């Protein structure tokens, strides 16, 4: 089942890129959309068949290189399922929203959508892999389509941005490769070498080795996520890339970083993860405030949105490393919600940029007057980015903050100004682009076309529905989080006030 999920977009991508239909852009786009919708259907079927009780499901396992103990092994748990669904939902929306983005690039439309679908296939593989080696290979492979997508379509300085992205992530990947090889050595020492996650998570590592290997994995994930101070590739990439590619990059690929921290860092190196917690939390707190502050200072919308993600990833990382149910459930939910809300903001801002042909906030003003629907969507997606209650992002952010408070009040106190700054950067952008008198050059901005509305509406609806009824996702996530916590050996602290002693409850009850 999971193999089919990976093969459909992979084969579909190849067909889109190389089949004779590539000479007809419209047919190419329609084909790409159909393929991505098929993936969505498959993903929904998988989700429906998933037993919310938890554990790895839909497991497939074939020995690959037995000498190294590598396997072609797939499976989804609560975390994997959430991210697989996110990927499957976002890709058709991106294809629909980026309908014409592929036409003006270095290569043809077919190549653009072929790469997009290929990227989807690889991302799905990353989220479904249960073998560290397979994960590593797919993790690095995602860079290939990303590199070409940013280098081939986008702003004037895109080649540089693409090279920067590649070098940063490759560096992280190579550090991780060393750790992956180290894992092989350790696992061979313990008996037969195996890269299966289930085997590795029970591996008995000496403290020193465990810490070194943890650092190797963590650096790669921190670059991917991205965290301060290795975040600078992201704003450049989102500034230069087309909005659709930025969505794939920020909403899906960057999640691999936090996904990896949760599944691999905590799964294989539970003790080292707790050892590193203070440093990780401090870096995450810096990311939150730093990303938000720098975002306020930007004039380029796409760069601004990219930087807001640095801030949000800080929240996700904090939730992971406070080691309690609220924090980790919140983080997992945050990954999904952040994916949707940032996608909405990127795409709607992209619609705006495409009309006026400028990404600079200072070139806009009064758009609300000429394009009220566009303004409405920008406001809604902006509100979800600033985690307004009622939007899905609020639930996850509140869970993370509460989890942080339970772990240590100061973490929450330092992190919370991030929500004030979020209001500033979102509303500042909205105020300067949408309100006030109509700026010169903005008259050309037309309101959203039906295609664009169709692309944006599902995201907004999802955000609102998940804001009021996140239970289906939380039900899937909760067992996973409990498993992780028990694996790490941490239990939720009891509240300061325990359950009521009988006599006390009686006297309190009779008080009124």
């Amino acid at each position, binding site marked *: 089942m999971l193999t089919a999920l990976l093969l459909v977009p992979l084969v579909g991508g190849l067909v889109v890129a190389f089949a004779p239909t590539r000479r007809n852009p419209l047919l190419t786009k329609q084909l790409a959309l159909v393929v991505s919708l098929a993936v969505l259907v498959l993903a929904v079927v998988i989700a429906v068949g998933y037993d919310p009780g938890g554990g790895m499901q839909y497991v497939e396992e074939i020995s690959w290189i037995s000498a190294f103990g590598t396997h072609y092994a797939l499976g989804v748990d609560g975390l994997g399922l959430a991210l697989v669904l996110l990927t499957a939902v976002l890709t058709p929306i991106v294809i629909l929203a980026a309908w014409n983005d592929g036409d003006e690039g270095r290569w043809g439309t077919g190549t653009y959508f072929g790469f997009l679908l290929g990227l989807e296939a690889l991302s799905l593989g990353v989220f479904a892999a249960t073998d560290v080696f397979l994960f590593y290979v797919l993790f690095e492979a995602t860079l290939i389509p990303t590199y070409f997508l940013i280098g081939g379509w986008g702003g004037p300085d895109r080649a540089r941005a693409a090279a920067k992205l590649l070098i*940063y992530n490759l560096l992280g990947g190579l550090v991780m490769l060393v750790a992956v090889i180290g894992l092989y050595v350790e696992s061979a020492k313990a008996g037969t070498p195996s890269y299966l996650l289930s085997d590795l998570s029970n591996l008995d590592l000496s403290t020193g080795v465990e810490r070194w290997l943890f650092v190797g994995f963590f650096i790669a994930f921190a670059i991917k996520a991205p965290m*301060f101070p*290795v*975040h*600078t590739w992201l704003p450049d990439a989102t500034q230069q890339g087309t909005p659709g590619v930025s969505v794939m990059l920020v909403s899906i690929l960057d999640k691999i970083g936090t996904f990896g921290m949760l599944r691999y860092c905590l799964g294989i190196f539970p003790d080292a993860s707790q050892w590193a917690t203070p440093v990780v939390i401090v870096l995450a707190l810096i990311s939150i405030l*730093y990303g938000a*502050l*720098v975002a*306020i*200072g*930007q004039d380029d919308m796409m760069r601004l949105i990219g930087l807001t993600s640095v801030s949000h990833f800080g929240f996700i990382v904090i939730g992971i490393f406070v080691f*309690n*149910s*609220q924090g980790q*459930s*919140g983080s997992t939910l945050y990954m999904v919600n952040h994916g949707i809300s940032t996608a909405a903001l990127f795409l709607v801002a992209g619609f705006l940029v495409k009309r006026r042909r400028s990404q600079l906030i200072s070139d806009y003003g009064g758009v*609300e007057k000429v394009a009220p629907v566009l303004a*409405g969507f920008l406001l809604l997606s902006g509100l979800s980015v600033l985690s*307004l*209650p*009622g939007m899905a992002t609020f*639930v996850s952010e*509140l*869970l993370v*903050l*509460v989890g942080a*408070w*339970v772990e240590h*009040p100061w973490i*929450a106190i330092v992190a*919370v*100004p991030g*929500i*004030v700054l979020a*209001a*500033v950067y979102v*509303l*500042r952008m909205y*105020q300067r682009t*949408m*309100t*006030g008198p109509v700026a010169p050059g903005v008259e050309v901005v037309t309101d959203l076309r039906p295609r664009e509305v169709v692309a944006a509406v599902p995201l907004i609806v999802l955000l609102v529905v998940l804001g*009021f*009824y*996140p*239970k289906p996702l*939380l039900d899937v996530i*909760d067992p996973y*989080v*409990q498993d992780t916590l028990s694996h790490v050996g941490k239990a*939720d602290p*009891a*509240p*300061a*006030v325990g359950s*009521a002693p009988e006599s*006390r409850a009686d006297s*309190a*009850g009779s008080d*009124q």
Partner: protein
Amino acid sequence: MTAALTSALTSVVPTEVPVVDPSSADGVLGLLWLVIALPVLGALVLLVGGRRTNAWGPGLATGLVFGSFGLGVAMFVEILSRSEDDRQVGQHLWTWISAGQWQVGADLLYDPLSALFVLLITGVGGLIHVYSLGYMEHDARKRRFFGYLNLFVAAMLVLVLAADYVGTFLGWEGVGLASYLLIGFWQHKPSAAAAAKKAFVINRVGDFGMALGVGLIFATFGTTSFAGVSEAAGRASDGALIAIGFLLLLAACGKSAQFPLQAWLLDAMEGPTPVSALIHAATMVTAGVYLIVRSNFIFELAPAARTGVIVIGCITLLYGAVIGCAKDDIKKVLAGSTMSQIGYMVLASGLGVAGYAFAIFHLLTHGFFKANMFLGAGSTMHGTDDDVDMRHYGLLRKAMPVTFLTFAMGYLAIIGFPGFSGFWSKDKIIETAFAQNPVAGACALVGAGVTGFYMTRLMLMTFFGKERWEPDVHPHESPRTMTVPLVVLAALSVLGGVLLLGDWIVDFLAPVVGEHEEEHLAISPLAFSAIAVVVVAVGVVVAWLTVGRRDVPREAPQDVSFVTRAARNELYGNEVNDALVVTPTMRTITALDAADGRAVDGAAEGVARSVGGLSAVSRRLQNGYVRSYAVALLAGAALVVAALLVVNL
């Protein structure tokens, strides 16, 4: 002052607090969800439906709010018929958040406190909808305005009906969003857009307290529902309770425009006047008071936090009153007055069991008379081509008799003219404050005198004196849709005091806030009321002497004392914010932005550049001469041989 207050208060700490223990909803109370659902439906239809609903949308929105009001009345009658112990009703809709042991339900709680709020919100809200039908008649985006209004009503109802701090938080931010949308409703004006953003951001600073408060409440109690927290409050440590109290107070300061987060309220007057009446006078800004009263089980056990509440209330009631004295913009005078009156409510809610009921009482009467006066101000603006400067009014009582008469009722109520609603409610607060603490009582009494001054000044400048409007302005009375709500609200302003008959409101709220203890003043209540009236009369007379007897210049005089100038500038609140927060933050942002490019990114790119530089030097070795390559080869081979020899030796 703080020390004095603390010592005065620590003596009266009860150890038991009222517990929220709702029975499940049935009968008409089972329709509790519908109270919220109706305006939600209205907002959805109007905002999603688009232009198609232009014709009938505003009417529908108004009808839906009255539908909620009808339900509210039915439910109010229902709980009145029940015994006192049976007046708390809960309704579980669905499980909202569940993570680990934290369960947050989408739960509603209907008790005497929320019952009063539901009536206020839907009742005054409905009247303001009707008023808006006339006021926004010619606005091209009228439908959207009504959509936002319905959204606001829905969010405010969520705020007061939620049975969990997280649910309250949802409504809390929902009203913030509606307020943002409505302040910036005329967003083609940059000042309106800026005011909207300012309001939202300052409110977010308050949310800082709310978010952390929720975190601390969960960490302390393992639950965030009112029922769970009130049940366990007695067992929590003092430190935790005080911290929760102060965090909730911070949240209340943001929403209720209390010092030091007061700066947004005056700018918020950029919004259409019905919005100022509904959101920035009658309902939303009182949410902070609601939060404190609702959390009485926390504040009762944390006297230090209650002291904080009293201090904030005293500062703000004087702060707002001083601003009200110097402003020439009629809406800003009323905004300053709102700030001041909410200061009274906050003060009362800080007084503990004795004060909660009076805080809510004043909140209700203030909701009536302030909404009345704001709508009256809107009516005068409507009649004078949207001029807000009182120096351009004068003698409007001739041109707009209905507006004048209704406004006068509100005026008499707010200054506390004996018999009018404000007299009863404010008098009770001042009296209770004196009983607990002379300093707070004195503040409240002085504030009453200042209120008499600035409201009389407003009346005199607007409705009396000489005609000062522009020649091409022809003041006229407003249409029926606007005057009828004015009349209704004027009647409520006069009669609001009946709620106190036989201490009805105190007894009614007792299940929520606890039994009221008798306060004993050294002098009889009647004599005390007389003193309060005299103080107010002094304020009125001073206003008559300084404003009423002379001609009012059309331009504000510039050669004024330092005090007046400070009051005109809102006591430099914005300047202080700029100097302490905004400017340093913007500087940090500029510095960080530069550092991000040069230092953080520069470090990474610097590594790349130095590798490139090294390569540029080392590539010189490739000079193209075979001989030099051969020498290098030979030298290398010799080196390897030598190394081998050395190692072997």
